């Protein structure tokens, strides 16, 4: 099990990977990716019970579904550095003939990805389905999912949220990245979603809050707490507050880096704030 310093180093390297991927092709979504570096790192390096290798059915292991597929750079970096494919392949992000599509897909057979996402609001239903499948198979492993907060504006989420509680899908931990930003601005300016804790609880979910999703210890504690609440008749939601663009000072606290890549100068500055730890690809 990695110690905190090792996890910090992993996170820093993931941030470098994110920045370098989007810079190379001058496209992609760095903001939300940077904000979720700690979550992905802790989930894949510490929390999930994963088998060696990859098969689509994922029996007898924990599964993860990314619903807000545009933060593919952080997903790809953590998958590669967790052994699903070579880190060199990060060089092919968004290029023609690549398995690393702009948004994650199963279509090109990239290990680690079990569903296409990008068109928002669909991942929770898929995660519920996979959780149902685990129960039918007598497999007591868990299903994790990640959703953007702005993504909750899509109605399908609320169908899924209602279903999961009603049908006691208690082997599911759905995390919401509460960074309060979406493409057009602050979520509260675009379409305020009110008290998400109260909403999830009213729908019958057990809610865990991570107040600083960019603090490794807090993320780890939050995920452990969520895990301890599974199997008790309720689906578990983690409302995780993060800072979009975290780790790069000029990208933080703004929606402006949602889908914009840094130029050469900006990349250099951003990388200097995240020195190489595990080795660049």
């Amino acid at each position, binding site marked *: 099990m990695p110690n905190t310093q090792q996890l910090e180093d992993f996170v820093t390297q993931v941030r470098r990977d994110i920045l370098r991927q989007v810079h190379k092709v001058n496209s992609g979504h760095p903001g939300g990716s940077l904000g979720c570096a700690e979550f992905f790192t802790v989930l894949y390096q510490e929390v999930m019970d994963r088998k060696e290798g990859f098969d*689509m*059915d*994922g*029996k007898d292991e924990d*599964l993860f*579904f990314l619903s807000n597929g545009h933060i593919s750079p952080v997903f790809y970096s953590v998958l590669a550095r967790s052994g699903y494919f070579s880190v060199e392949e990060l060089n092919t992000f968004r290029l023609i003939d690549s398995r690393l599509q702009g948004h994650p*897909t*199963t*279509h090109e057979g990239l290990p680690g990805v*079990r*569903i*296409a*996402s*990008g*068109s928002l609001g*669909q*991942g*929770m*239903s*898929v*995660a*519920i*389905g*996979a*959780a*149902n*499948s*685990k129960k*039918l*198979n007598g*497999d007591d492993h868990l299903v994790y999912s990640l959703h953007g907060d702005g993504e909750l504006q899509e*109605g*399908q989420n609320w*169908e*899924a949220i*209602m*279903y999961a509680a*009603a*049908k006691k899908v208690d082997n599911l931990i759905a995390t919401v990245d509460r960074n309060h930003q979406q493409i057009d601005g602050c979520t509260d300016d675009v379409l305020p979603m009110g008290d998400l804790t109260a909403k999830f609880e009213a729908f019958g979910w057990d809610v865990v809050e991570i107040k600083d999703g960019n603090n490794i210890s807090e993320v780890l504690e939050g995920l452990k707490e969520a895990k301890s609440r599974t199997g008790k008749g309720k689906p578990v939601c983690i409302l995780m507050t993060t800072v979009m663009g975290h780790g790069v000072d000029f990208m933080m606290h703004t929606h402006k880096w949602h889908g914009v890549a840094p130029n050469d100068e900006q990349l250099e500055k951003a990388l200097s704030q995240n020195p190489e730890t595990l080795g660049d690809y």
Partner: protein
Amino acid sequence: MKKYTNTGNKDTRSGFGDGLTELGKTNPNVVALCADLTGSLKMGDFQKNHPERFFQVGIAEANMMGIAAGMTIGGKIPFTGTFANFSTGRVYDQIRQSIAYSDKNVKICASHAGLTLGEDGATHQILEDIGLMKMLPGMTVINTCDYNQTKAATIAIAEHHGPVYLRFGRPKVANFTPEDQKFVIGKANMLNEGTDVTIIATGHLVWEALQAAEQLEEKGVSAEVIDIHTIKPLDEEAILASVKKTGCVVTAEEHNFLGGLGESVARTLTQNFPAPQEFVATQDTFGESGTPEQLMEKYGLNAEAIVKAAQKVLKRK
């Protein structure tokens, strides 16, 4: 011409329900999901026999499609059940991203397709679903013609890996295909051999095509009748072999002429063997309330319409 006997009117949706009941006994990986239309889809037996494998999702079709996609992960074979309208147009993006693009082994089973849904009217009478589904890469599209064929198709698609759209209907219609006829995805059924005109029909229009062929025979016209239950992948070989013999074709379907079987046949002919074609289909219109018989007559989707189309296309040879 070959004589077909209606062994008694039955609804195609009951063929689906009975096929599903059969699968419940024979294939432990088959699971069923329904969006508050268990009775309409005839899924009650499966629900009763296998409550642990039946998932009532309520009136939430988008969620149903996503759950179905997720359930394939772990080896389940999900069959979703709701009306054709709510199985396609309402959830197109969910099917596109989570099922078709993700290559998930989901069977989308759609009842009450087309005008024969009847009195509920145009909000429920989808005439665009074949087009929507056949445009999705990797999607198999099947439209069955009677009870026996629907039951056989339901059982057959469980053995096929990949997303399938299975379209059937509400009313009781002639049941005439052999009970023991094996359903082969993508293989046309030659119902009657003829030499003057080819009639290619799908779904409820297949029985009408047989009636039309009898009427044409009385007028001295020899009509070949082909049942295309699988619109995608299309049995181009059977179509081309027939049209090369007859030199003209009528396509018949309970669907808009834009995007349906007729267009798939036209593309096949244009690329391989251009020939005159007439389309028995709705003409870019919505439906309306009425009895199934009234609607099929008003919108030109019955044996009489096929006869007229055949006479017209014969003059264009």
